[in-house]
């Protein structure tokens, strides 16, 4: 196996057990980056967030994801799950290029197709995706 690349010094590592931060920081979102966990020992990308790599027992570091992926599954939500939501809107599972699946949102109401190529919308919070063919717009 190829050794993992050295850590990016600009990225705040998650440190040891006991110092785990639950979510990407506000700074991460302001900079528009999509961060995912990666085991510093084996290089496996870990999502959903885990306190330790199941294989190595080491706390993951947070690294920038490529921000690309494809639609694994999607649905148009037609009823509101609670205050603050205004259906219809699309919730989707996106398989990141790195491998893990992320629950996210896509614009409009589709239709989409499983397998459609998508990319992260910079600065979106919570992280949203859009079709790669779409014209790039700032949020």
């Amino acid at each position, binding site marked *: 196996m190829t050794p993992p690349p050295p850590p990016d010094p600009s990225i705040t590592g998650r440190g040891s057990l006991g110092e785990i931060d*639950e*979510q990407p920081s506000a700074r991460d979102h302001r900079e528009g980056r999509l961060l995912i966990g990666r085991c510093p020992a084996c290089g496996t990308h870990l*999502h*959903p*967030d885990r306190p330790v790599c199941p294989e190595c027992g080491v706390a993951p570091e947070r690294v920038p994801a490529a921000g690309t992926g494809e639609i*694994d*599954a*999607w*649905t*148009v*939500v*037609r*009823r*509101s*799950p*609670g205050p603050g*939501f205004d*259906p219809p*809107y699309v*919730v*989707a*599972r996106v398989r990141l290029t790195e491998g*893990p*699946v*992320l*629950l*996210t*949102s896509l614009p409009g109401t589709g239709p989409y*197709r*499983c397998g459609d190529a998508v990319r992260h919308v910079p600065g979106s919070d*919570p992280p949203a995706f859009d079709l790669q063919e779409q014209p790039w717009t700032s949020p």
Partner: protein
Amino acid sequence: MSVAVVGAAECDLGVTGLDVLTLQTQAITRALADAGLTLRDVDGLATNGVGRFPTTEVAEHLGLDLAWSESSFVGGSAFEMYVARAAQAIDAGQCSVVVISYASDQRSARSRTLGAGSGLPPAEAAHGPLYPASHYAMAAQRYLEVHGHDRAVLAEVAVAARAQALLNPAAYRYGAGPLTVDDVLAAAPVSDPLGVLDCCLVTDGGGAVVLTSLERARDLPRPPVVVLGYGESTTNVSMGGADDLLATGAVASGRRAFARAGLGPADVDVAQVYDSFTITVLLSLEGLGFAAPGEAPGLVGTVALNTSGGGLSYCHPGQFGVLLLVEAVRQLRGECGARQVAGAEVALAHGTGGILSTHATVLLGVDR
């Protein structure tokens, strides 16, 4: 294996106006009466959905003296898991008579919601999925696209469930008349491609089964229903946590249960497969090995499946797993009247919990 189910019963179903402990009491005392046993015989209890300390609350309510108790809380598959634990506890001699029970007053109490109490990570809940419907909806959408099916294959599951409910006087939709594919497709949308008729009922209800050693079972009034095998699998709690929506934990759960029983899907005469949503049935049938991927629609309406009318048309009290067991037992005893599967000797009950999160399979058979 040397453990048998000797009693089975429902509590009142539908809209009861009764509280959970009253419904639990009905389920347990009716199942014990069916078994020819009394509360004094019970030394093991598995239940959940009653307060903070489920078995403790029910035991005190009924004056039970427990040598064994179990309250794993894993959604609708819990009760199939309880059969495994109970069989092991009875085989090991820790207890001799186990009641597995469940009841809910969710319809009367109007406690069911679309989004609350989901247990999803905040990062997922922020996107506004319905819980659990949107997860099953995503699985359904992928299923339809990957296999080139249209929504009618989902609708047929609801149609078949209704046809069975029309044969079951205890079913919520008994007397409601038949359902058509067009009815299902035209129903109000919930989370595409699922509409309201792709979703299970929200009712009060529950039930109980009683287990003891096969040796003792042979001296009790009802024909013993032998526990032939069991298996389970726990997969994901989040919507992004499952790698492949179409290969659920039913694959491992079923494989383990069939291996323990020394049986295969072809040996099953009647199957009770959790139907929280129409897609749940198709994915579970394929995972359990009854059909190749994408081919479960060919079984719907043609095999002995969800004979009670299922969660879609009979009763769904939040967790349906105990009622899968009740119907499986009744089919093996030949008690099902108009919906009886002639000569059924092996029954499968397969529970699913959460968002395809937990899976548990039980194989039951007549005493040979």
